[in-house]
């Protein structure tokens, strides 16, 4: 089982914009594609596989047209904000199987300039389970709040412990010149911010921005002629969690299934992982993900995130770019997890560089944590 180091990440690009009323969503995709292909030293004509999500039911075709691509492999896996993490695993599998050689993954969004209420708009998909939920008013934020409340009840996790996550990630954002919010905050600031859906405060929640990014995945053979040192795709796995016929334990996440599988495929243990990029839609998402990935026992997440452990210089730095809590969150953040992890493994992160970063783990959560969500784990390495 595994990719046998046959697939590598050759190029990444994070669009620097956080507010782009002068651009279309498709334009942000295209600008991001250009950036990642430049980074790899490849041309758009080299692309023979295309992956995207968040562009409408068959929007992958519209995007392929917009970029005038003729791919032999198409993937529009749409499992929420984690989709782009899954795309990397899928691209690696397709490359290892010989179905394609240069995979382009793009993302773009103008959520902020279009004033889209990502977390509090009360979206209603209209599938069978939605009809038993939407009439009662679950916001995206509310569904995560349900989980936070249960976690506090079962394990005594405190609002101050959740706040510590937001404070740490804001500190990292201060080291990222393109992060949207860079001024330091304190635990007291988080606790003093208004409660949006109890027990979550405003500063427990990700921000809303415009933005985009792109990734180029190719074969290890092809990588020998490219600009940058390769970052190897060592392992990847997905899972989903839903209400399970009305019996789900809300402290269980999809990460509990996808994490161990991805790590086994990569042949790595927790102690081997130098940094993590954890989807931080909300502070509770980070805390539960760390528990479900097995970095600590269930219920011990509150203590785990204290004392600088998850900050730069700590035992397990996370979200060194400032995350969705402070850097950018255009609605689907998965692609940025992979971009930052790749830059860390290449040693390109300047003041926020993790020392001797050999192995990085990305975990994306998509959908709504308390209703239905996906998990996509990816393990990357520089050798």
């Amino acid at each position, binding site marked *: 089982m595994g990719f046998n180091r046959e697939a590598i990440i050759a190029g990444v690009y994070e669009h620097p914009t956080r507010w782009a009323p002068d651009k279309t969503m498709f334009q942000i995709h295209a600008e991001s594609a250009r950036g990642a292909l430049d980074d790899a030293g490849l041309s758009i004509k080299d692309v023979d596989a295309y992956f995207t999500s968040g562009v409408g039911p068959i929007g992958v075709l519209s995007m392929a047209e917009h970029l005038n691509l003729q791919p032999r492999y198409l993937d529009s896996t749409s499992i929420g904000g984690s989709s782009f993490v899954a795309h990397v695993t899928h691209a690696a599998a397709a490359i290892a199987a010989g179905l394609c050689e240069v995979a382009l993954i793009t993302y773009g969004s103008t959520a902020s300039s279009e004033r889209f*209420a990502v977390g*509090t*708009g*009360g979206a*209603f998909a*209209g599938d*069978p*389970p939605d*009809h*038993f*939920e*939407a*009439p*009662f*008013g*679950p*916001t995206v*934020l*509310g569904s995560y*709040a*349900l*989980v*936070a*409340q*249960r976690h506090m*009840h079962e394990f005594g996790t405190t609002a101050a412990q959740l706040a510590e996550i937001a404070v740490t990630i804001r500190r990292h954002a201060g080291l990222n010149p393109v992060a949207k919010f860079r001024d330091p905050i304190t635990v007291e600031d988080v606790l003093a911010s*208004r*409660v*949006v*859906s*109890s*027990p*979550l405060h405003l500063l427990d929640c990700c921000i809303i921005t415009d933005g985009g990014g792109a990734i180029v995945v190719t074969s290890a053979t092809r990588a020998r002629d490219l600009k940058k040192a390769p970052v190897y795709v060592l392992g990847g796995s997905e899972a989903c969690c839903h*209400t399970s*016929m*009305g*019996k*789900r334990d*809300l402290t269980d996440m999809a990460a509990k299934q996808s994490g161990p599988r991805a790590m086994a495929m990569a042949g790595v243990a927790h102690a081997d992982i130098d940094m993590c990029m954890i989807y931080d839609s909300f502070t509770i998402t980070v805390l539960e993900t760390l528990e479900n990935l097995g970095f600590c026992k269930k219920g011990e997440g509150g203590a785990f995130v204290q004392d600088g452990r998850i900050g730069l210089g700590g035992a397990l730095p996370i979200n060194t770019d400032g995350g969705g809590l402070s850097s950018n969150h255009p609605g689907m953040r998965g692609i940025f997890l992979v971009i930052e992890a790749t830059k860390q493994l290449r040693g390109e992160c300047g003041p926020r560089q993790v020392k001797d970063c050999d192995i990085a783990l990305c975990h994306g959560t998509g959908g709504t944590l*308390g*209703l239905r969500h996906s998990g996509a784990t990816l393990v990357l390495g520089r050798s």
Partner: protein
Amino acid sequence: MADERKYKKPLPRIDEESKGFWEACQRHELYVQQCGACGARRHYPRALCPSCLSEDTRWVLSSGRGTVYTYTVTYQNQSPGFRDALPYVLAYVELEEGVRLLTNIVGCAPEDVRIGMPVEVTFEDVTPDVTLPKFRPIS
């Protein structure tokens, strides 16, 4: 009975798989499905048992009693209907029959809701065709 034209919150689609549940709610009865083949109980209702794919479906009348499994007091929701009803309590209630359902806790101050609180169903006739099962504290 609320005026349908003024009711702005989303309404459930009542279809072949779900009408047994919603029609019972109109009679102010709450039902949980149970598989006739393997015995597994489920919510929300659907035609086939996900545990064994049998279509032998029984309906179990719920006592209407349960406890709050978790909840959140919602202070912000921009969507029509809800923005006029803030704050409101969204909750999972665990029924005595062993399944959890998403609902609202009503009939008490939002800040008085607690996990583990005993609650009972109360039916809200929101339109002539739709009745929603909500829950209130058992006094």
